């Protein structure tokens, strides 16, 4: 009877956990974060372009890397969007749903790891709950970034490698395949994933290289190599190594000692409670308002978890500490302090440590422990609700390029014979292309089908054209004398200038703080010529 009740409670708990995790990730996913940032739009647009034409925005047929803004984006997210857009259609919600699903799978993966390593149900539940309510993980589970996809592949890759030690060795092949795919999916994984593989290799070297298992190792390695096929295609190009150029040892100032000091300070920041619980990531798109990476009340549980970890087997200690140490290695090589996106993999060992610490409290204080932890999670959920759904958009909508969907809607209303000039941020061309749903045919003249140099030049033209919409800087002396509609960004045009150049308002887009963020105006060349420098007055 008791076992039956426990089973029912477990199932109910699982349902509640996933309802909560799902709600925090799916609720208003199309509107929060408000806007659709250029990187998100580039990934989504290239998926859409592949679906429509079999080519990317530059006209390259099924590329292994997307040149995008010249920084060469990894391909997996865009490729996965092809069938998804085909089935459910193209929208911000659909594009972000892939990362939502990926985030939920990551939670299950962490729970499986907790069960395999700590063999205690409370730790399984609590680790899952910690990740489900971790603001760090929620952010990247609600926005189109490859990193979350890669993280889920890494987690499940490790799950397969670990389970392959006990069950069927075929899991190794799946694990190698997933880990290889994580490398294809996210640049940072090129450093972190092999290091995790090395941990597994060191811990299980005797078993892996025993005579019985050799053939399985060969199969797994072969599967991994095949899954790395997109990498082999481009490994010798400058595009593949483009992101490696941002590391401080390539770009740093000062001598070697200064650079090592700089790198050490950046690395230490990833293990700094001040950054974890108070500062977070300083980037506007990398955090929620008034929320750091984790809740401050989780600090003692990390300490309890750390203490409890000492009692675990050397194998488990090596995995958890090893993962924690290798996760920020790639991130620490870049100059950004506490780059939460590049160090996302840290959420796994941190969730496990906090879960372990909480499990200790539950086991020690029984019902009181449960009540305290339930209360803390309740407080945490309320905090997440306020920050994510009520506050972040008001302060961060500019960071997420809010308003371009509305601009595209206004553009569609303008008669086809009127040319349009967009003078906002250069990078916004991709959002306009996405929201205007212009297939490649409209912009191929601007980008050319320069396939041979595609992976090497990093060429990113200044002036773009999406159908009749030109995206470039305004040339005042010429553009006001052409009959057209000019769209300005927030700081692009003052009322005085509009009067001076006889520009008439066609539409305005306002931000969530009520301020005008886009302003579409119609030129009047004849009147401007007539009025000259006097302008058109009020």
């Amino acid at each position: 009877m008791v076992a039956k009740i426990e089973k029912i409670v477990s199932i109910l708990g699982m349902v509640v956990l996933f309802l909560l995790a799902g709600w925090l990730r799916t609720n208003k996913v199309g509107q929060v974060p408000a806007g659709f940032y250029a990187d998100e739009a580039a990934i989504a647009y290239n998926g859409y372009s592949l679906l429509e034409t079999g080519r990317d925005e530059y006209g390259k047929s099924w590329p292994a890397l997307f040149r995008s803004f010249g920084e060469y984006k990894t391909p997996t997210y865009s490729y996965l969007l092809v069938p998804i857009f085909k089935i459910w259609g193209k929208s911000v919600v659909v594009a972000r749903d892939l990362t939502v699903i990926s985030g939920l799978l990551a939670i299950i993966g962490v729970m499986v790891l907790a069960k395999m390593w700590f063999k205690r149900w409370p730790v399984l539940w609590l680790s899952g709950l910690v990740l489900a309510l971790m603001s760090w993980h929620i952010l990247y589970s609600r926005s189109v970034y490859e990193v979350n996809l890669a993280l889920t592949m890494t987690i499940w890759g490790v799950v397969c490698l670990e389970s392959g030690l006990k069950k069927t060795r075929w899991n190794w092949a799946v694990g190698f395949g997933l880990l290889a795919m994580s490398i294809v999916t996210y640049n940072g994984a090129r450093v972190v994933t092999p290091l995790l593989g090395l941990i597994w290799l060191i811990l299980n070297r005797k078993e892996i290289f025993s005579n019985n298992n050799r053939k399985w190792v060969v199969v797994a390695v072969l599967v991994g190599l095949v899954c790395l096929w997109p990498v082999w295609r481009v490994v010798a190009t400058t595009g593949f190594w483009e992101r490696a150029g941002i590391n401080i040892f390539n770009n740093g100032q000062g001598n070697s000692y200064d650079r090592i000091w700089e790198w050490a300070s950046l690395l230490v920041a990833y293990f700094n409670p001040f950054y974890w619980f108070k500062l977070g990531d300083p980037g506007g798109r990398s955090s929620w308002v008034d929320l750091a990476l984790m809740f401050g009340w989780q600090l003692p549980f990390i300490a309890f978890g750390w203490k409890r970890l000492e009692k675990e087997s050397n194998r488990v200690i090596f995995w958890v500490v090893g993962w924690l140490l290798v996760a920020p290695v790639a991130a620490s090589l870049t100059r950004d302090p506490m780059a939460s996106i590049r160090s996302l993999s840290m959420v796994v060992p941190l969730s496990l440590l906090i879960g372990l610490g909480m499990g200790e409290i539950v086991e020690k204080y029984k019902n009181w422990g449960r009540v305290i932890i339930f209360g803390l999670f309740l407080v945490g959920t309320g905090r997440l609700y306020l920050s994510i759904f009520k506050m972040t958009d008001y302060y961060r909508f500019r960071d997420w390029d809010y308003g371009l969907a509305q601009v595209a809607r206004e553009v569609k209303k303008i008669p086809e014979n009127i040319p349009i000039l967009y003078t906002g941020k250069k990078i916004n061309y991709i959002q306009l292309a996405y929201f205007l749903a212009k297939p490649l045919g409209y912009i191929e003249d601007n980008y050319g089908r320069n396939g041979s140099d595609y992976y090497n030049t990093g060429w990113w033209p200044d002036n773009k054209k999406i159908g009749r919409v030109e995206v470039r800087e305004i040339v005042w002396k010429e553009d006001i004398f052409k009959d057209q509609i000019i769209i300005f960004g927030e700081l692009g045009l003052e009322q005085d200038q509009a009067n001076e150049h006889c520009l008439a308002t066609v539409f305005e887009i306002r931000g969530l703080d009520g301020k005008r963020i886009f302003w579409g105006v119609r030129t009047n060349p004849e009147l401007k010529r007539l009025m000259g420098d006097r302008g058109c007055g009020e």
Partner: protein
Amino acid sequence: MRKLVLFIIIIGGWGWSLLKEPSHWSLETIFYPAVGEEKRLFEEKKGLDISPVKRFYYNKATIYFNRYTANFFGLLDVNSYFFGGHPREDVSGRVFRPKMFWLLVVPFFWGLWRMRLGSKWWIALAVLAVLRNPDGWDLIMVVPMGLIIDNGFTNLEQWWRRLRK
């Protein structure tokens, strides 16, 4: 002997920084009225939601709570102890002084393994965080930091011996 040398190194570096750039040693607490940007932001955030949930998180105690947690976690800022606050010297309201030789960060992290710090140090930390500007008073952290670094050297020594075997 090692403890003594360590203590001299740490207190020497830290003390030197205090001599070079003296602290105000202020005993003013975080319970001062909010003005300017702090107040404006608080009022703005309070106005963004009207649900009862908001009242729990944005009320009279919020500003003090935020100041307290900023100080508390600021006192745990490893980068401020070893790197003079680098790479986030832009955080306002904090004094960044290099307190210890940065390479001591290695035994410091190593020392966190199997380290037992008495609760008195956590209480000291909690009390220090009540001060508006704990700079200078945080010198008290020399002791727990030194103990952790010392433990780190012990752990490193043991690890090295095991490795040689």
